[in-house]
């Protein structure tokens, strides 16, 4: 590469390096414009709306996962099965006990948060005390994932179940259709994400979480009660996972693999957003959901899941620190 004048590649790299979020926004905007030109505004808007529902679920799962990943450096493969757990807890309340969906959502969030706390207390804290390595924790989380999933399969079997939600009625505005359940998913999901965002951004707890994410040891030295902050992190992660599980179950159906199938796109959102950055995970989750739906405009719908994984692989290889991540994360 010539050193006399900066090449296009370098110019692009400096642009990407300086403002990755802006560059990513530019790329997404460009894709949207091309799609609008090729497929028409209505189709793009409709798929975006569909994608927003999916993206909300990714974002919910990803925010919890990224908090845990950032603070504990734990690649929690069991997060997907936390989602499944939440969905089945909602099924218990909503279908078995016949209570309204909102009660089921609260119950699912509470019990999954409890599951998160339990796993911290019984597994992750003692393992941290032993100075366990990455592989040890990773395999342990896979083990936990297996135990949760087989527990669900034991009690509920592997047949497909549905929550008691309205899947026929839909709302139309500006020529766009959205099912009532989908609308509920987006509204509830985004409201909760907004609330969590406020807590993380403005509360003392949020500030402490960010301090822990920067350096656990330093935070401890600074006199922060790290144990308490970590427990709260699990509380958030669990509750958000439970909610994501219920919403996903309401959108489609319940089966023991529900959460595991969502795990990789959620990881994609976490990494794209920059590990430990909840706002990054949130935006990346939403964009990823929409991008997956946009792909159906170009390729056959049955390829869309594959598209999500390909996007993850490309993103990781092109920019491993994520779009919103800092250099230190790599």
């Amino acid at each position, binding site marked *: 590469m010539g050193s006399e004048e900066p090449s296009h590649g370098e110019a692009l790299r400096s642009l990407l390096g300086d403002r990755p979020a802006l560059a990513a926004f530019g790329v997404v905007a460009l894709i949207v414009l091309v799609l609008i030109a090729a497929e028409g505004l209505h189709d793009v808007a409709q798929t975006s709306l569909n994608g927003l529902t999916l993206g909300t679920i990714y974002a919910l799962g990803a925010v919890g996962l990224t908090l845990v990943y950032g603070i504990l*450096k734990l*690649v929690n493969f069991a997060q997907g099965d936390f989602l499944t757990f939440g969905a089945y807890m909602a099924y218990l309340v909503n279908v078995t006990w016949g209570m309204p969906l909102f009660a089921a959502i609260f119950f699912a969030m509470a019990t999954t948060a409890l599951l998160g706390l339990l796993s911290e207390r019984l*597994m992750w804290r*003692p*393992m941290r005390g032993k*100075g*366990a*390595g*990455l*592989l*040890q*924790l*990773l*395999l*342990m989380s*896979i*083990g*936990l*994932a*297996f*135990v949760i*999933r*087989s*527990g669900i*399969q*034991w009690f509920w*079997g*592997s047949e497909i179940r549905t929550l008691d939600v309205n899947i026929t009625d839909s709302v139309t505005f500006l020529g766009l259709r959205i099912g009532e359940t989908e609308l509920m998913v987006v509204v509830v999901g985004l409201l909760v994400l907004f609330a969590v965002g406020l807590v993380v951004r403005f509360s003392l707890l949020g500030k402490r979480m960010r301090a822990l994410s920067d350096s656990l040891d330093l935070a401890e030295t600074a006199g922060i009660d790290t144990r308490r902050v970590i427990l709260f992190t699990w509380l958030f992660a669990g509750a958000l996972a439970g909610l994501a599980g219920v919403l996903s179950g309401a959108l489609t159906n319940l089966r023991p693999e529900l959460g*595991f199938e969502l795990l*990789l796109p959620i*990881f*994609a959102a976490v*990494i794209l957003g920059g590990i430990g950055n909840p706002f990054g995970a949130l935006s990346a989750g939403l964009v990823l959901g929409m991008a997956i739906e946009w792909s159906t405009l170009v390729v*056959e719908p*049955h*390829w869309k*899941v*594959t598209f999500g*994984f*390909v996007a*993850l*692989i490309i993103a*990781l*290889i092109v920019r*491993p620190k994520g779009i919103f991540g800092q250099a230190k994360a*790599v």
Partner: protein
Amino acid sequence: MPPLGFTLQAFTNLGFWSGVLVVAGIYAVVALGLQLNVGYTGILNFGQAAFMAVGGYSMAILVLEGGLSFWLALPAAVLITMAFGVLVGLPSLRLRADYFAIVTLAMAEVVRLAAQNARDLTGGTKGLYCEFEGVNQTCFDDSWKSVSGWILDRFESFWSDPEPLLPLLIVIWATVALGLVVLRRLQGTPWGRVLRAIREDEDAARALGKNTVLHKLQSLAISAVLGAFAGFFLALFLATIHPDDYQPIVTFFAFGVLVLGGLASYSGVVVGAILLWTLLEGTRFVELPISEEKTAALRFAIVGAVLIGLMAFRPQGLFGKREEMVLGRGGPR
């Protein structure tokens, strides 16, 4: 049948043990590759199921669509899988350990979903087995069946009713033995010591002038070849190739075998494979008063509990050395 009745008849049944040993052997081949990657090089390869799928599918497609003979398709499929391993490793091996684990897992899912969706080539969810042209039927394992029949005929002179799985069993375990010897030899060479150095401290190895990415790539390529062999054996054992047989679960189970036997111990892999599969298949034959579905759930729970218990109380497994469990100590960084 009394409640909770145990019949241990299965354990004297030759068919039962042949089945266990075939599956254990296949997992031993898979886990030997993982041992090279994870135990000796320190790269967390979570895409081993993809190498099995690429190996199995390319062999079957070359035979059924390409009209290649089975014996030519095998080495061709090995080369394809190796090339695929290099292709995957080239961009991703520069990533840090946890990202590499996630990328390889995602890659394995891409392969599986592609196999599921590219219906013209892979048969989609119907899977691959035989092709029909009028009355002629070609199956990918025709050549193997004739060899297997020939071997069984040799046994018939002194054994009235030879176990039909025996030829496959012999080939699989011969491969395991060969892999064990070759990998152990490799580990003692300067090349093998560089791998270990990379596992301990990649920066230091690089500072000493070693091309660490190249070494990791070679490690991954060898593992891919072992994956391809496991893919062939699984295809021959099941007599079909189906996307569902290459779920991430396969890789996770192989990790179970790996850590049960112990990291950085090739013979541990063999013991781990036999132990884990005796345990798992045992649950199928021990007559518990529970449904089929609950038995399946129980198998998952066992593997999960084995993983959790080992990692918590004996991370070095049965035969590993504790000082070799250095991987990612203190988190990624």
